[in-house]
């Protein structure tokens, strides 16, 4: 203990910064400084724009457009009743509900047909041949009649005003093509993994997307809860083959010149994987799609072209830098520490844990300020120390593994998430994009 203090005393402030350069150079500015600056901007903004927000709400109700709720999925029949009940409670009711069953093997079709007969579902479509989530969503889109299309997951549920709130940004500004809602974890207290994910979602959504949205660099609208202008969706031909179709479609909407917004006021609850094993699988899938869509399909964002816009460029750079480059840089940092501080490694580790825990507490401080439901967030404070290990090590390991596998082995094209036929076809398309770029 004494030795520990002596060591740090000896290092001084400059030594401390030297040892945790990674934190002070990259993480502190992005996750603490930027968050609080933008929280301030966001709060001021919404304070001064209170009228514009209320105006937008009035405009929405005056327009009262028919919207279409599209719910694609496979083997989700068990969730239909709960989902419909959740939607019946919504303050905004002028919607057409389309559920698309993507070749389920269970009783989904029987349940869906029955509910259609009972008038609980407006249109139940089933593809006998499984085609992947994107194709199911596109089938729903083909028969959508609403002005806006809401894309939901069957296992989500919603705050009563979620649909109303998520529509308001369309009336706040011109040229909004899509709006994403906030995702929170419903099964938060189920296990350690879900508790960690709760914290992660809160930081990511309530804070991260708020910042990204203020900066206009929001790059993903979650598939679990996103709203699109139907005409815009149809213009870009709907969703492309996943996985990662959420991020992909957001980019495409940006590409043709529409704004993409995020609202913390529209809250959707979703179930997250309860075990680390399942979580790992899910994150590998998510991480792969970054490689696939940034570096393969949408690499034009990284190069100056006729469609180039600085803000899109920044959106991608932020994403690529913080999730991809830093992920590898961190290994170099780890190496640096291991080599230069081999005997004191334990001191560094302990101090690092403390540093990151304090940092996370500060970062998490934003959550209750922004969140509508403050009391149940307090419980999660107990999990903040553990977050150091969760995001600092676990998530990094998973990501690194996924990136390497995808870069060298094109793993995502073998993903069971899609039927083989669509993966194969999608890969051929993306290979062609690659060829075009390498020939330039």
């Amino acid at each position, binding site marked *: 203990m004494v030795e520990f203090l002596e060591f740090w005393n000896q290092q001084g402030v400059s030594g401390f910064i030297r040892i945790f350069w990674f934190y002070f150079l990259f993480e502190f500015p992005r996750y603490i400084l930027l968050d609080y600056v933008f929280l301030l901007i966001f709060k001021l903004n919404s304070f001064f724009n209170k009228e514009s927000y209320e105006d937008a709400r009035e405009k929405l109700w005056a327009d009262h457009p028919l919207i279409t709720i599209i719910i694609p999925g496979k083997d989700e029949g068990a969730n239909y009743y709960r989902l419909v009940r959740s939607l019946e409670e919504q303050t905004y009711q002028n919607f057409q509900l389309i559920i698309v069953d993507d*070749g389920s093997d269970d009783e989904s079709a029987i349940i869906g*047909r029955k509910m*259609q*007969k*009972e008038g609980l579902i407006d*249109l*139940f*479509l*089933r*593809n*006998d*041949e*499984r*085609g*992947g989530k*994107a*194709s*199911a969503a*596109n*089938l729903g889109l*083909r*028969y959508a009649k609403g002005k806006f299309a809401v894309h939901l997951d069957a296992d989500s549920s919603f705050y009563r005003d979620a649909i109303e709130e998520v529509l308001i940004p369309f009336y706040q500004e011109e040229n909004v093509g899509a709006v994403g809602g906030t995702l929170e974890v419903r099964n938060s207290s189920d296990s350690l993994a879900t508790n960690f994910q709760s914290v992660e979602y809160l930081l990511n959504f309530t804070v991260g997307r708020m910042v990204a949205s203020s900066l206009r660099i929001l790059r993903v609208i979650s598939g679990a809860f996103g709203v699109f202008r139907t005409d815009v969706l149809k213009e870009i*031909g*709907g*969703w*492309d*083959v996943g996985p990662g*179709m959420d991020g992909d479609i957001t980019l495409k909407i940006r590409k043709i010149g529409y704004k993409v917004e995020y609202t913390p006021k529209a809250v959707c609850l979703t179930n997250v994987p309860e075990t680390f094993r399942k979580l790992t699988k899910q994150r590998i899938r998510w991480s792969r799609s970054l490689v696939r869509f940034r570096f393969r399909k949408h690499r034009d964002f990284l190069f100056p072209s006729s469609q180039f816009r600085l803000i899109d460029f920044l959106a991608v750079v932020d994403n690529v830098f913080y999730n991809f480059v830093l992920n590898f840089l961190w290994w170099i940092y780890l190496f640096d520490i291991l080599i230069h501080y081999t005997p004191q490694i334990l001191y560094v580790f302990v101090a690092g844990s403390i540093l990151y825990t304090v940092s996370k507490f500060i970062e998490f401080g934003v959550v209750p300020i922004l969140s509508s439901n403050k009391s149940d967030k307090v419980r999660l404070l107990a999990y903040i120390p553990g977050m150091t290990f969760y995001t600092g090590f676990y998530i990094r390991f998973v990501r690194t593994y996924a990136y390497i596998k995808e870069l060298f082995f094109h793993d995502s094209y073998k993903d069971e998430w899609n039927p083989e*036929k*669509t993966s*194969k*076809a*999608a890969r*051929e*398309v993306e290979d062609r994009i690659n060829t075009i770029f390498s020939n330039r």
Partner: protein
Amino acid sequence: MKLNSLIIDDDASFRVLLRKMVEKHDSLTIGGMAENGEQAMEMLNSKNIDLVFLDVQMPDMSGFDVLDAVKNIDPTQVIITSGSSAHGIKAFDYGITDYLVKPFTQERFEEAINRVLRNAERNQYTTTLINQILGKVLLYIHTRDFQDFRPIPSRESKLGYLYPMLTSNLDFRREEKALDILDMAEQEGFLTSTYIDSFYTCNNCYNSYLLFRETCPSCQSADVESEEQIHHFPCAYVGPISDFQSSSNPNALECPKCERILKHIGVDYDKPSIVFTCNRCDHIFQDPVVKAKCNVCSSDMNVESLLKKNLKSYQLTSLGRDAALGKVIIDLNEFDDMVDVIDKEYFQRLLSKEIERKKEATFDSTIASFQLENISEIYEQIGNQNSKKLVREIFELVNSEINRSDEVVFQSMVTIWLLVTEKGVSEATPVIKRIEQRIKDLVDDNYSNFSLSISKNIKPVVTTKTASEQLQELNATLRDIS
């Protein structure tokens, strides 16, 4: 068919008058005349009489004494003739349908005869004729030495098949009974059968010429179109095949999203489903309701509720051979024609009797009617045969709820009449309400997604009006749904 008539009357001039009326009538012949009870009993026991004109007051005995003495007489074959209406109620007790008060008009006479005729016809079809026809069929199979009595496909016959000798003996209206007759003959052990095929008939008229088509589940219109959906793998576009057809190249399929030409099903695209559009109401759906329309009576039925009939070939058993040769008597059971359940006249007679009783003693009685307002929706779906079963079930249910002195009868397939004797309206109402609930429960439990609506009317029995007037009033407040 001619009815062999017996006239029993002690008044000679009336006998002559009645004889002339009988002789003039196309459907009647004179089988005999009796001037007293004794003669009457002798003739009734010796002759084959179809219709009896029975006088009540005769010197040696009354007409009712004759009925008591001759056991095997069917009351529906008897018409009471009397100088006064005083014996009407007693006649009802014997189950006698008609009562002619002397002197009567030609119209009144015709009316009475027609009723007997209808009754006789019905009886003939249900028993005598059927037994005769079966006898012929068995003999036919035996003499031609058919190892296998097979149906012959025939466009002209109602079922699409005819059984030689059998179908031709039934008029078109009743051709479907051929299957029932053969079934009953098999149950009686005259025949054994081998399955050949199955087919469906109209629930309403049993015709087998049905026109099948897909209809819109929302508006029932048959004006629907279906289109295959195409899923283009590379870009995940999904839409109806027409999205992929371009005017520039009519033979090629071109993706509207990525503009590529589709090459090979299963490789770069597939057809995962079919979507229907209704041209009438624009409804979009994947599960059309397949309906069958009867070519004869135009009933439009869901195919799930069509009546399935089994087509069989038949082989004569040794018992059947004996029956064919007349060594065994053929006596098939009657068909269920609901005569005991749906009987308007019976209820009216009953009510008249109650009114007469009420004139003599002081007590309150109540009549009620239930109208099963929307039950015809179910009848349409389940068909004639099952509708009858349902009506019988309701009938038995109500019967189990009421006292033995009370009566229930179906006026029609949708209206039930109830007589609660010796209870005033306020006393009878709880009973009636309970019955209403029980009927609703029975129907609702058996048919999911259906809620039976019942309207009812409760009235006291009064002595100032006739039975038919009171029944008219009872029904007047009900909606006209027939």
